[in-house]
């Protein structure tokens, strides 16, 4: 089935709504708002469709998407796990969904308690006692964390401390340098060793210059490997007067087993939409709480949610705070879901989830090694990197393998990331996938490896089973068409 743009479906005179009749005396509009301040285009171009048109339109569109509920979605570093329906139901309870953010605290105690409890649990899980739920997504939490480091240094060393360098591994997410830059830091890169870990010697050199503000580290790193020397890494940075920020994107490998706070990390962001399974929604909403040490706590964004006996309130009186990073209190709807996730799992369930996520990745790593190249030998945590090295000899590249996986009914893994691995395929099965589906995925990957040998063109021209074939992204970017117009 095809489905045009909604603008193309529009027909003059169709309606999809009905309002209650206006029940107050009307004033002449000109008396309320002068004509020159009102729009005069009669909203030309905005669709006119019936409710049925809307439902059919978006239902049809939806059928063109792959989703977690269809099967394995092994996007490395994205942690696409099952989104519990219970949590969706909770987020829609009228007592939460209809609550205005500026409601007087007395009449919003339930919501404040939700925030407070989630803060407490995240503190326990990370080992970092200061928590703010205000950041709206991972990159936002990252920015918040880095700004807190900046504020801390300014307070400790005075504004002119000259600590302008943020050290970031070459394997890091692109958001890391972008966030560091937003906080006014220069970025220096620390390399990855042949073992896939941070190069300690280089780190020591970089820290020796006196201008280091901190280190942004993902752990397990984006190669899926735990930084064994994490305590030493933190010591080096701390000794140099810097702070350690940890990117929490990979917390699904650690929850219930190890805590960043115990490792020496100063501040971390979490992705509730990864580790705590709030749905990713095709690109958000996310939620990126920031967790920090006691020393950094004064610098968290305002307002904070605090407890006074039985009562919860908003605390604005935080003179050292970096300020607000968002209006109101963060993506509260995501906090509800994450809290429900934590309560449903309990400590044992959280630990079991982590264990299973790691086991599933390890199982894949074990079974795919015969057909695909692993650039690093160390046993992976919750995700594993392979490359197209063997297949590339036949002209079959990572992109081709990814597209061919679609024909086998799977979402492809993350590809060409981390950047330091040529032709990388970063596979993260998560705990939400059963053994039989892992086996099917392994079988599909092996089959593609065989096809790459025997019929490379079949792989190179994949996918073959989708509504559309590969799209020409290069021309799309050269002459971008970013909106519909009647003449298109």
């Amino acid at each position, binding site marked *: 089935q095809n489905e045009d743009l*909604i603008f193309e479906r*529009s027909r003059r005179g169709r309606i*999809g*709504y009905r309002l*209650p009749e206006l029940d*107050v*005396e009307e004033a002449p509009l000109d008396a309320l708002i002068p004509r020159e301040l009102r729009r005069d285009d009669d909203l030309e171009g*905005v669709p006119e*469709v019936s409710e049925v048109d*809307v439902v059919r339109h*978006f239902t049809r569109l939806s*059928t063109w998407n*792959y*989703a977690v509920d*269809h099967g394995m979605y092994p996007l490395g570093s*994205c942690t696409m796990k099952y989104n519990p329906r219970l949590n969706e139901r*909770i987020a829609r*309870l009228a*007592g939460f969904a*209809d*609550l205005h*953010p*500026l409601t*007087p605290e007395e*009449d*919003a*105690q339930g*919501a404040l308690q939700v925030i407070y409890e989630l803060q407490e649990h995240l503190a*326990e899980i990370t080992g970092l006692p200061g928590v703010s739920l205000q950041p709206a*997504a*991972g*990159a*936002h939490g990252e920015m918040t964390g880095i700004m807190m480091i900046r504020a801390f240094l300014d307070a400790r060393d005075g504004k002119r401390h000259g600590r302008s360098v943020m050290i970031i591994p070459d394997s890091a997410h*692109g*958001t890391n340098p972008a966030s560091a*830059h937003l906080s006014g830091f220069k970025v220096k890169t620390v390399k990855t060793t042949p073992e896939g870990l941070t190069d300690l010697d280089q780190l020591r050199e970089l820290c020796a210059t006196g201008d280091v503000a901190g280190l942004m580290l993902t752990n397990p790193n984006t190669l899926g490997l735990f930084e064994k020397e994490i305590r030493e890494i933190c010591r080096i940075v701390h000794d140099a007067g810097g702070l350690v920020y940890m990117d929490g994107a990979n917390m699904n490998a650690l929850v*219930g087993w*190890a805590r960043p706070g115990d490792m020496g990390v100063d501040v971390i962001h979490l992705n509730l939409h990864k580790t705590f399974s709030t749905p990713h*929604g095709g690109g958000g*909403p996310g939620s990126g709480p920031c967790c920090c040490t006691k020393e950094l706590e004064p610098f968290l964004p305002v307002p904070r949610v605090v407890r006074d006996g039985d009562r919860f309130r908003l605390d604005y009186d935080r003179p050292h705070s970096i300020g*607000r990073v968002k*209006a*109101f*209190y963060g*993506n509260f*709807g995501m906090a509800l879901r994450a809290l429900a996730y934590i309560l449903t*799992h309990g400590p044992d*369930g*959280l630990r*079991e989830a982590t264990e299973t996520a790691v086991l599933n990745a390890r199982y894949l790593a*074990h079974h795919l090694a015969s057909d695909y190249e692993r650039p690093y030998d160390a*046993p992976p945590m919750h995700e594993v990197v392979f490359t197209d090295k063997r297949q590339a000899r036949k002209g079959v590249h990572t992109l081709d393998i990814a597209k061919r996986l*679609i024909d086998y009914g799977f979402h492809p893994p993350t590809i060409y990331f981390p950047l330091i691995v040529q032709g990388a395929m970063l596979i993260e099965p998560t705990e*939400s996938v059963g*053994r039989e589906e892992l086996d099917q995925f392994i079988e599909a990957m092996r089959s593609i490896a065989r096809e790459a040998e025997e019929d490379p063109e079949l792989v190179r021209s994949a*996918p073959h089973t989708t509504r559309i*074939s590969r*799209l020409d992204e290069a021309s*799309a970017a050269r002459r971008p068409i970013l*909106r519909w117009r009647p003449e298109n």
Partner: protein
Amino acid sequence: MRYIPNSPEERAEMLRAIGLESAEQLFASIPEELLLRAPLRTPAAMSEPEVLAKFEGLAARNRAAGRPSFLGAGAYRHYAPTIIDHLISRAEFFTAYTPYQPEISQGTLQAIFEFQTLVCQLTGMEVANASMYDGSTALAEAVLMAERITGRSRVVISTAIHPEYFDVVHTYVQHAGIELARVGYDEQTGQTVIDREKALDERTAALVIQSPNFFGCLEDVQRMAASAHEVGALLIVVITEALSLGLLRPPGQCGADIVVAEGQSFGIPLSFGGPYVGLFATRERFVRQMPGRLVGVASDKEGRRGFVLTLAAREQHIRREKATSNICTNEGLVALAATIYMTTLGRRGLQEVAYQCAQKAAYAARRLASLEGFALPHSAPRFNEFVVRAPVRADELLEQLAAERKITGGLALSRYFPDRPNDILVCVTEVNTRSEIDALVAGLKELTASSVATSLSGE
């Protein structure tokens, strides 16, 4: 754990299959001393009915959620057609990731393309992105973008914008070498006043105004644009009540260079402040300086139309620290909900909702202004929010109204403006019935009767 397919027995088999003996061995790369010995001190696992009961109990403590309310100030109560939640609850939408693989993400991609188009149509701008976190962060990004475009580092902001938006901008730019200057508003009109001599100069990257502004007053956007452009600065317009676009001249027609807005009014639950969705639109020539994701048209080999994420070269996974923004995950599902809202209401409905908001607010304003001791301090035209000045302290009056009449009467402006103790920011939308408005008026009248009497007798 019911969310984990593999049973303990299966996990044991899998461990054996890869040559391990225990789950602990999976974590062998974590130094011994870092491994947690004791269970986490979070509450013991709860069953589904227990979790549900707990949250129902918490929800019930949010007493304000079910009451008539006149709170606005950046978050608005509007009726959301039922189909929105039904459609965004389709797993195909809400359990998908960012559409990195276009062949199996056309649903999300086409919907975002429609969102971008609708945002352009409503704001009167040429290009819009796939969404920002919310209105406040969208504004902060707009300020950073203006600096990139103009190469200038001074930004002038009206004090009549949402105070929390100003705070967010301040946080974002504090280390970016941008100087924030403020211009005030006329207490009579409620509109921003620019003393152009002092306020705008050749170092100014942008002028930032909100319209309708925080006090509900419409700004003269056209004049503001002229003032900004005269010194080579951009005009950034921020909108917190997106439904005003159904009635008001779009900023794009008034010369705005960047328009950002909070899209919550488009069918998004209040949800105690989030998730909402930031709209971001600008001129075509600035597109490569725009933050955030963009969806564009592409063709496949057979020439069929499809949609892809495009112009990614601006983004951080390619440009890293030189990216236009660090934004990655945005508000995809909320943008989808807003798209469905705009589509369902459509051309007629968006105008009719806006019309009803304006008429109901006008009715409420007339009624309140007629109360003994009450006044409307600002004269500018308004959309659906306005300030009313009470004869007594606003915060106490509103507290009494909530306690005794079960009405949330609006926002005491003193929360943000300590110098305006008696002012209430009232918002009226299409969901406020006449009888609610009348109850508000009656409540305020009766609760202030004694103090008015006192002051009258004191005259």
